[in-house]
């Protein structure tokens, strides 16, 4: 197996993705040309809806990392970043984006035209430590950009109380004031409601799409998870809704006709943690043996619903909950989510990616593994990294995955 390979896409709508991605980045560049302020921000927060509502352009440096991985640029970026003195032990997103903005950014050979420079930087407070540090480094690199420090409580979802919400709403309002001031544009609340409605629609479609994975055989697998791109970059736009509707329709049709991703689906798998962006082909390996990944932790970050009638509150709640949903802020909650998914999606085995690039999602996996095994769901831990292929050993993966798959197949009565 290659260290970097691409996953097989079977859905027609998944094949549309490169175009969707190209269009988004084109839009970012046009915004820059037209003088529409470009803001860099972390994903999974309410800033995205505010930006779209105000006609500003959101850009997501974290999302740029999978793009770099797909184009095989990560090594170059790591080299620049590590050359600056950043430790190889730091999160791969951090090393990639810092390397990129100090290296190839703005030069020739940038895929998709590269990233346009930020006019505004919105560092997150409330996500993980690396993201906080990424944005501090970006502020250093782009000193001319206007920055706004939003403060979001880092609180487990089950512990959210009024004072967390009130503070989060206060911070969202402060952000609006800041954006109005630096861009000279006024936020139109009716427009915001419309954007939030679109965002909510996207979430609803997202959940519907995910629910098709309950079908046996599943009409969509982790190999097509790239569709998540629109949830990261396009939430709150008609584009996202249209695209997700097309995905949903295709899945519906496939589900009705019982067309699975695999001709002969034998084993249903759960994937915990971020995929290996440089090696989405890893999923092909399982698929070749009749195993298909039908659920994962990461995709749950968008399983929220938004209330268009209370846009500020709902965006504050979104910002507050998206990250804790998938991280170790509450391992209890994540464990619950994983176990529930395993039941609902009829999972036979779980693959827990022990991800050197993401401590928050990795911590707690051992506890999750134990509980899965109590539910009689075997779990395999694979050591890797979602960005840095130097932390992934193909040979080791293959030996362990072979044994795991053989065990699962024989448990289900398939002779090898």
């Amino acid at each position, binding site marked *: 197996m290659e260290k970097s390979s691409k996953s097989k896409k079977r859905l027609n709508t998944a094949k549309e993705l490169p175009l969707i991605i190209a269009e988004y980045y084109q839009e970012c560049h046009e915004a820059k040309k037209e003088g529409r302020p470009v803001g860099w921000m972390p994903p999974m927060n309410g800033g995205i809806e505010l930006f779209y509502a105000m006609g500003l352009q959101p850009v997501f440096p974290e999302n740029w990392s999978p793009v770099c991985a797909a184009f095989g640029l990560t090594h170059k970026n790591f080299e620049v970043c590590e050359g600056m003195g950043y430790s190889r032990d730091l999160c791969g997103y951090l090393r990639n984006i810092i390397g990129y903005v100090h290296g190839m950014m703005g030069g020739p050979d940038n895929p998709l035209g590269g990233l346009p420079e930020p006019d505004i930087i919105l560092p997150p407070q409330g996500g993980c430590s690396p993201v906080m540090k990424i944005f501090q480094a970006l502020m250093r690199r782009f000193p001319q950009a206007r920055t706004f420090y939003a403060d979001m409580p880092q609180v487990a979802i089950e512990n959210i109380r009024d004072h967390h919400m009130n*503070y989060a709403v206060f911070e969202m309002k402060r952000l609006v004031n800041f954006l109005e001031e630096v861009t000279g544009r006024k936020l139109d609340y009716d427009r915001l409601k419309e954007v939030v409605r679109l965002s909510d629609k996207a979430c609803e479609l997202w959940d519907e799409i995910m629910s098709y994975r309950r079908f046996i055989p599943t009409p969509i697998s982790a190999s097509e998870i790239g569709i998540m791109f629109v949830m990261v970059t396009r939430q709150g736009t008609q584009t996202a809704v249209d695209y997700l509707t097309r995905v949903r329709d295709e899945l519906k049709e496939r589900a009705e006709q019982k067309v699975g991703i695999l001709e002969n689906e034998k084993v249903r798998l759960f994937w915990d943690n971020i995929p290996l962006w440089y090696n989405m082909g890893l999923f092909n390996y399982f698929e070749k043996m009749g195993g298909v990944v039908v659920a994962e932790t990461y995709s749950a970050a968008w399983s929220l619903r938004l209330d268009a009638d209370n846009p500020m509150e709902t965006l504050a709640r979104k910002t507050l909950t998206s990250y804790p949903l998938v991280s170790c802020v509450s391992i209890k909650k994540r464990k619950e989510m994983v176990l529930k998914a395993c039941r609902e999606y009829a999972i036979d085995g779980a693959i827990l990616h022990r991800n050197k690039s993401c401590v928050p999602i990795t911590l707690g996996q051992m506890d999750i593994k134990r509980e899965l095994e109590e539910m009689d769901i075997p779990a395999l831990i694979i050591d890797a990294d979602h960005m840095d292929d130097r932390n992934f050993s193909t040979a080791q993966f293959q030996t362990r995955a072979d044994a795991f798959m053989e065990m699962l197949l024989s448990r289900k009565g398939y002779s090898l």
Partner: protein
Amino acid sequence: MISDLARPFDEIVRNMDQELQTLASEGKRLIGYFCTYTPVELIHASGFIPVRILGDAGTVEKAYTLTPDFICPYLRKAVEKGLNGSYKCLDGLVQGYTCDAACGVANIWEANMGADPFHILPLPYVDQDESRSFLRSGLEDLAEILKRAGGDFSQERLADSLDIYGRIRTLMSELYEIRYEHRLPLSAEDFLTIVQAGFITAPERYLSMLHDLIDALPETCDPGEGVPILVSGSLIEETKVLRIIEESGGRVVADDLCTGMRNFVPAYGHGSDPMDQLIDRFMNRFPCPSRSSAEYRLPRLLDLMKHSKACAMVFVFQKYCTPHLSDYPFLNDALKDKGIPSIMVELDETGIMEGQLKTRLESFFEMIGW
């Protein structure tokens, strides 16, 4: 190697298990924490003794079953120590959200070692009226949780706790001032031992020990040999690395550690009621990279160097520590620009390679040629 002055503190640190057991057998209820951003005064005011969970000197064997090997060795060793039963006297765990690893390990601790009460307190990053009242609500929440666990909190009790911790911090600051003047007859190893004892024992007892120590300090002291340095990092649990630094030609005259100065500055906060004072101190803390940017810290570090007449910086990091490792390139470049020599030492869970480290440090100090 531990001097007579530091010996009583060393006894406590070396017999930590016993110390905790004694406290427990006296009917004290103990609450563990990892980061010094945890409001110890509030825990104390509720009738508990806050105990900072430290790591063990040994290597990690059991913690492999619970934590990946790429989180900081401090936390892994703490889990190891927990699994070995050292913290069975702890009732609960309270942690201020500082870094992801500590937050995750707190969760793991609760699931595997048990912790009741258990709470992770979200902390604001910016200082504005609303963040102060947000923090206030969070602290009131925590007081409520501690109350439900049998605690007994009141503003008066908090005032007393602020007073006792404030006095401890004032005495520690006095020691620091003497250290900045290069007049402290304590090695860095002694000093860390003194700080560590404070994490383990009841503050009342600790305060009187500090008084005794200060009374016993000689009037004058030979400034000693070695390049005066500032040690910067998160926390150091094993004193050995400091010993090696001083044996190789350095002399620690200042630090930016949460097992050090960062825990003590400022001694008090201001405000109209005890809760406000607690909040104010939090807001004015000498910042940890997990809560601030390198730009914010740099001028403070430079001031500290000037004040202590340190000529070089030694960064001592826990391997995999995101907040510190991320700030390092900026700080290092800034120091270089100012012509201040610096060197970085990473603490690994397998322990430091003594010989190799010594050679590196020796040539570093030689190069400075102080």
